[in-house]
C-alpha cells in the first residue's frame, strides 16, 4: 500500500472517502495519479458492522457537534443532529440504502422548466442529461445497479409486496424493486443480498456497494492511493498566486500535520465541505476559499422527505430484508397541476423498534404512541423523497460560539421549508396513505422528516462564476486546482436519491483532473 510523504507536493489530496471522494480517489489511482485521502473517521470493516440500530449509530454516525436553526422540526427534536450521515472510511456509502436513480432531463434545467418561483434560488445546471448519460452508464456498471447492464432486480420483500399491491390498486404503473446498487447475484467479487435487513447499519455481506470495500481497496491495490483514517481536515492553504498548496489536518493523535498537494478535492458532504472552505478564509480570501460569489454554504438542500407507516390487521414484518426494497415512480414527474413543481419518489423503508420509537413522532408519549408501537409487526412503511427548492437563506455557516476539539468553529445548519416543499410533502403523505389504505390499512402515520441523509447544494455548480462555486467539472471558479467532489456541487436536488449522480460526477471529474494534470493546466 502506498505511503506518501507529507512534503510530496505532487499528490492529489481528497478530503473524504464516501461516494464522491472514494470514487474519485480510485478513478485517479487507476489512471496513475498519486492520491492521499484524508478521512475524518476510522476504518471500520464489514465484519465489524453491527445489526443493532443504536450501537451502529454510535459506531458510524457523524456525531460531532453541530448547531441548527430554522423552522424545520429537526432543529427542535434533534438540535445537534441536523444530518444522519457517517464518519468512517467509506463515508455515507456504508449507511446508504443503495437506491441508484438517474436524474430526469428537466431536473438539470429547473430554472428553464419551473420558471421563477418566489423565494427559490433556481438555476439550470451547466450540464445536461445527454452529457451525463455515458457517466451514469459507467457508474451503474461500477456499482452493479439492478435493472441495468442485464442485472436482475432484487426479489421483493413483505414490505415491498404491501406497497406494490396498494400501488397497483391505485393505478400506479412504475412500481418495481428499484434500481439498487445491491447485488441480486454475485458480481465484482461480492455476494448476493442475503436479505439481512440492516442496510443502514453497514451491509455485513458486502452485497451493497460501498466505497469501503470496492473503490478504496481497488485504488490501494494500484499503489497510487493512500487512505489516512482519523485525519480531520482543518484548513486548506494557498500560495500568493491563490493556488491551493496543501491541507492542514489533525491526525489520529490530534497533532497537526500539513500534507502538500498539487490538487485538492473536497468531498466531506454538504455540511463539512462548505465548513472547510469557510474555515480556510485568509487575507486573500476573507469570506472563505472559493467564495467570491458568496454562495459557499448557501442553497442547502435536504430533499423534501417524510415517511408513511401503516398498520394492518395481519403481520407484515417489514424489517425482514432490504431496507429500501422497492419504489413507486409515478409521482416523480413534474406536474404543476398537483400544486407544486418537481416530483417525488415513494420508496419502501423500514426501521427497527429502537428507531421507530425515536423517529415515529419525536417527543410523543401516552397510549396513542404506544398503540402505534405495539402494531410494529403489522406495519408497512415507505419513505417519501422529492425535490426541494434551493433557497439562499438555507445555509451552512460557521457557528459564532461553538468550536470543535481543535478550536475550529462548528457548522451551523439553517433550514426552512419552502411552500413548494410543504405542498409536495402534504401531497406525498396523502398518496402514501392511500397506497396502504387501498390494501386495508387500519391506520396510517405521517412521520416527520428524519435528520437529513441527503445533504446537497452548498457549493453549487454554475455556468457563471457569480452564480455559484464550481464549474461543470466541480472545479472552483476562483481556484483552478481546488475541486468539490460531493453532493454539495448539486445545482438543484432532483426527486431521486443523489448517490448515483455523485458517483457519476466523480468518475467524470477524475477524467477531467487527470487530463488537466497531464496538460499541466493544474
Amino acid at each position, binding site marked *: 500500500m502506498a505511503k506518501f510523504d507529507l512534503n510530496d507536493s505532487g499528490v492529489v489530496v481528497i478530503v473524504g472517502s464516501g461516494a464522491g471522494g472514494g470514487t474519485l480517489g480510485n478513478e485517479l489511482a487507476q489512471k496513475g495519479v498519486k492520491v492521499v485521502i484524508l478521512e475524518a473517521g476510522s476504518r471500520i470493516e464489514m465484519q465489524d458492522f453491527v445489526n443493532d440500530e*443504536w450501537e451502529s449509530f454510535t459506531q458510524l454516525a457523524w456525531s460531532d457537534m453541530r448547531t441548527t436553526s430554522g423552522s424545520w422540526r429537526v432543529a427542535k427534536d434533534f438540535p445537534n443532529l441536523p444530518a444522519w450521515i457517517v464518519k468512517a472510511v467509506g463515508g455515507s456509502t456504508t449507511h446508504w440504502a443503495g437506491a441508484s436513480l438517474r436524474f430526469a432531463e428537466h431536473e438539470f434545467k429547473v430554472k428553464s422548466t419551473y420558471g421563477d418561483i418566489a423565494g427559490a434560488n433556481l438555476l439550470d445546471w451547466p450540464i445536461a442529461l445527454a452529457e451525463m448519460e455515458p457517466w451514469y452508464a459507467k457508474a451503474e456498471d461500477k456499482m452493479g445497479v439492478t435493472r441495468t447492464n442485464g442485472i436482475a432486480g432484487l426479489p421483493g420483500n413483505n414490505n415491498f409486496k404491501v406497497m406494490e*399491491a396498494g400501488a397497483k390498486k391505485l393505478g400506479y404503473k412504475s412500481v418495481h424493486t428499484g434500481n439498487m446498487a445491491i447485488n441480486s447475484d454475485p458480481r465484482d467479487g461480492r455476494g448476493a443480498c442475503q436479505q439481512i*435487513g440492516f442496510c443502514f447499519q453497514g451491509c455485513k455481506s458486502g452485497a451493497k456497494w460501498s466505497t469501503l470495500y470496492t473503490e478504496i481497496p481497488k485504488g490501494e491495490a494500484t499503489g497510487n492511493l493512500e487512505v489516512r483514517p482519523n485525519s480531520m481536515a482543518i484548513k486548506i492553504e494557498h500560495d500568493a498566486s491563490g493556488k491551493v498548496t496543501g491541507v492542514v489536518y489533525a491526525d489520529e493523535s490530534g497533532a497537526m500535520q500539513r500534507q502538500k498537494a498539487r490538487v485538492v478535492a473536497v468531498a466531506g458532504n454538504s455540511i463539512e465541505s462548505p465548513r472547510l472552505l469557510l474555515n480556510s478564509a485568509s487575507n486573500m480570501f476573507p469570506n472563505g476559499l472559493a467564495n467570491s460569489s458568496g454562495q459557499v454554504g448557501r442553497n442547502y438542500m435536504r430533499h423534501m422527505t417524510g415517511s408513511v407507516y401503516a398498520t394492518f390487521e395481519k403481520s407484515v414484518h417489514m424489517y*425482514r430484508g432490504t431496507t429500501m426494497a422497492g419504489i413507486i415512480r409515478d409521482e416523480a414527474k413534474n406536474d404543476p397541476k398537483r400544486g407544486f413543481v418537481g416530483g417525488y419518489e415513494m420508496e419502501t423503508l423500514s426501521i*427497527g423498534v429502537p428507531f421507530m420509537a425515536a423517529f415515529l413522532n419525536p417527543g410523543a408519549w401516552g397510549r396513542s404512541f404506544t398503540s402505534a408501537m405495539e402494531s410494529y*409487526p*403489522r406495519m408497512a412503511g415507505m419513505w417519501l423523497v422529492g425535490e426541494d427548492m434551493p433557497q439562499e437563506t438555507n445555509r451552512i455557516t460557521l457557528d459564532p460560539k461553538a468550536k470543535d476539539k481543535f478550536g475550529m468553529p462548528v457548522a451551523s445548519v439553517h433550514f426552512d421549508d419552502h411552500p413548494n416543499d410543504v405542498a409536495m410533502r402534504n401531497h406525498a403523505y396523502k398518496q402514501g396513505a392511500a397506497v396502504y389504505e387501498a390494501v386495508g390499512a387500519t391506520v396510517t402515520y405521517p412521520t416527520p422528516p428524519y435528520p437529513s441523509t441527503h445533504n446537497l447544494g452548498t457549493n453549487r455548480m454554475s455556468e457563471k462564476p457569480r452564480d455559484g462555486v464550481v464549474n461543470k467539472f466541480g472545479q472552483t471558479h476562483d481556484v483552478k486546482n481546488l475541486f468539490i467532489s460531493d453532493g454539495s456541487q448539486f445545482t438543484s436536488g432532483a426527486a431521486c436519491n443523489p448517490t448515483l449522480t455523485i458517483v457519476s460526477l466523480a468518475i467524470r471529474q477524475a477524467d477531467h483532473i487527470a487530463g488537466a494534470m497531464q496538460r499541466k493546466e493544474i
Partner: protein
Amino acid sequence: MREVDRRSKYDRRVFLKGAATTVPAVAIATSTGLSVSDAWADDATTLTPATLKTLVKMARDIYPHDFLGDSYYITAVRPWDGKAAKDPAVKSLINDGVAGLDQAAKDRHKLPYAQVQWESERVALLQMIEQTPFFQKICGDLVVSLYNQKEVWPKFGYEGSSAEHGGYIKRGFADIDWLPKA
C-alpha cells in the same frame, strides 16, 4: 407466514440480578420478575428508593405497554441513580422534578404521584409538566432506555440482529400470504 415468538429468551430475574448487588428474595421468588413494589431500589446511592419508584411509575405512564412487566421499566430508569451520583445538576433536576410532581399530585389528590390510583389521573398530572426540562429529560432518555432493551424486542414482534442467522433470505423475508392478488 413465520410469526415471531413473543416469549423473551432471557430470564429477567437473572438479568436484573447481574445489575443489582442485592436482589430481595421476594423478587427472586416471583415468577413475573421484579415489580415496582419490591425492594429493588434499596441499594440506590444518590436517589431515594421512593424517587426511583416514582420514576418507574412515571415511565409506565409515559410509555404504557400492558404486556411489559415493571422489570423493564425498572431497567430503564435505574441508571438515573448513577447519573445523579455523577452530576449534581442531574440529581437536582430529578429530585426537584419528582418533588414538583408529588406536590401537584397532593394538591389534587392528597396523595404522592405514585399512589394516585388511576392512570388517567396520573397522565393528567404529567400533561401539566410535559414542557418542563425534567419531563423532557425523562421522556427523551426513556424512549431509548426502554425500547433499546433487546429483551423487549420479541414482545414487539421484532427479531433484532439477523446477519448471524444468514439474514432473512430463507427465514420469511417474502412470506406474506394475505395480500389481494396483484
